[in-house]
């Protein structure tokens, strides 16, 4: 058993039996390979089903807003930063949430697995940094490190910056990464090409809103897509409506997004929706030197200002 799984269970059982929290929000086993399921453990027995593996792509901070319970949440670096975001945005109180921080070495991208093993996978087992997948008449072993999601490859906060307890010693952070090479490359192209790129990027969108619903930042009672007086965008798959949706969704995440990748992991048609949010993330770092969710006493960049903020494009 993974050391982290063991420790998560131990902490969860302790918190539940001591009555510290009402529920422990973690991951339980999934019913299909390369997928696990959010688990709401309310008893120490249920906590025995908690697991940790490389499929913890769902961001559990998503379940915190509007809860009245005392919650312990199993959180990777990015998830913990979203919990911090919720606290700063008054979606949950600090003393209502117990952060079980999990230093993370990245989650795998099932599409990467599929690229390497195209046959139908019926089971997948992780051990010692390897992933072994099996199907009818075959067994393939791959290095987990080769299968990581793009946001995990460029992650620089694998350890939760804020936590109540860490399940293992912090893992070394990745340094010297060029996180935005592709964004810079895109920005270097003519605007017409960029427009064509983004039109193509979202052309398969089916407007299921899974990217929004999987995102911890999207907790509005009424999302702009559901507003009808005025109605900001049509509900069809007209390319303009689709692009408008993605632009406004991304903008609503500006300065709050931790690049956790839950949106892309949820997308049924594999749209790289992070191409929108990452540009904003980069822009905010460049312009305001801010990173989301790193501290409990820093407000998001759109909630504050400096008199000397850059304004080179304003006449």
């Amino acid at each position, binding site marked *: 058993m993974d050391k982290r799984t063991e420790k998560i269970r131990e902490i969860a059982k302790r918190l539940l039996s001591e009555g510290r929290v009402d529920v422990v929000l973690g991951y339980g086993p999934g*019913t299909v390979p390369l997928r696990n*399921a959010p688990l709401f453990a309310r008893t120490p027995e249920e906590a025995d089903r908690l697991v940790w593996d490389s499929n913890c792509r769902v961001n559990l901070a998503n379940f915190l807003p509007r809860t009245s319970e005392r919650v312990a949440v199993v959180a990777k670096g990015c998830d913990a930063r979203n919990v911090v975001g919720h606290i700063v945005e008054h979606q949950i109180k600090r003393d209502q949430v117990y952060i079980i921080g999990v230093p993370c070495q990245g989650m795998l991208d099932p599409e990467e697995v599929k690229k390497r093993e195209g046959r*139908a996978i*019926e089971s997948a087992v992780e051990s010692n940094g390897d992933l072994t997948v099996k199907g009818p008449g075959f067994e393939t072993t791959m290095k987990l490190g080769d299968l990581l999601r793009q946001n995990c490859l460029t992650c620089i906060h694998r350890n939760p910056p804020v936590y109540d307890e860490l399940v293992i010693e912090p893992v070394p952070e990745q340094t010297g990464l060029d996180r935005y090479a592709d964004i810079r490359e895109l920005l270097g192209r003519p605007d017409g090409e960029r427009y064509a790129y983004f039109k193509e990027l979202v052309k398969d969108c089916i407007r299921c809103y899974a990217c929004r*619903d999987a995102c911890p930042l999207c907790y509005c009672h009424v999302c702009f897509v559901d507003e009808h007086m005025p109605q900001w965008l*049509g509900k069809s798959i007209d390319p303009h409506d689709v692009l408008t949706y993605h632009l406004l969704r991304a903008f609503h995440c500006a300065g709050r997004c931790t690049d956790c990748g839950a949106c892309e*992991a949820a997308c049924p048609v*594999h749209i790289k929706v992070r191409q929108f949010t990452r540009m904003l993330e980069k822009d905010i770092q460049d312009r305001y030197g801010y990173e989301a969710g790193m501290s409990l006493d820093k407000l998001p960049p759109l909630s504050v200002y400096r008199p000397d903020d850059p304004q080179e494009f304003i006449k």
Partner: protein
Amino acid sequence: MADMILKKKALADFLRSLGRSYQVFGPKQEGGEVRFGPADGEVLLDYQNSRLSPKEFFFPQSERMFEFNADPKAEDAFLLKERPANLRPRLLFGIRPCDAKAFAVLDKIYGNDQYTDTYWFDKREATTLIGLACNRPCATCFCTSVGCGPFHEEGLDVLAVDLGEDVLLRPLTDKGEKALEAAGDLAKAGKKAAASAKALKTEAESSITSRVDMDKVNERTVMELFEADHWAKVAQRCLNCGVCTYVCPTCHCFDIQDEVSGQIGDRVRNWDSCMSWLFTQHGTGHNPRPDKTSRVRQRFMHKFKYIPLKRGGDIGCVGCGRCVVQCPVNIDVRDVVRDMNA
């Protein structure tokens, strides 16, 4: 008409000759996924299933229903006009039996005891379906539990079975026979081919180990199932996104929207999802399904209780497993039905 045999080597010619009478579509590899697209003499035979169901051939995600002149001064201002339907004969090659069964279920929904949805049936009638039997069902398939199967014929015009070197073509309807006639010279299938198709069927059916039972669901009343306490537990992790409904071959709910740009207006219908709170929101602000639990419950009750009650026992699920694979939080319909049946 008897079963026919098509040499696999001649598949491209077969599709091309069909192309003279039909627009032919089939499963194609696109990026990492299988999708239905124009066949152009080439389709996949060794695929499991398409990521999205082919329901969009009959129920496009967005479909113009009417158009109107939005110029208030015009004589025909704001009068809805039907759009001429594009009814060129189409042929879908290689859809899976579960998806065809889904169309058969939807035929009963789009055509109820009083009304007939012309948009659905226009396209259904203009389309011939050649299904491809599943020799290797996926681990998530549970079709055999819900009145379907890897070689199920309902809803198809022709069933094709991949025999290795050859493809057996079994015409099931007049439409199917017409298509095979249009395809030109095909040899009659011999006893051996029929026997090996049968053996493949048995093997495929027995390879489906994933089962759900429906006996108690059928026995229980609507209220017993509705008031059961497992719904809150299922709903707890649901994101209320619409992935399951949009990838589902039997999900058929829609919204009707009017769109005006300049002086042209359209009334469009779009896929809608019972997972959305807006789906049932009254103008007054009241919502009969106000929470996640009631919305999640609706989806499963609709498929496994309401549709069987109202449509002669047909289950509103064909066991294709798409929602199982694609739910971001792994809500497995098989587990939900097991809870309903517990």
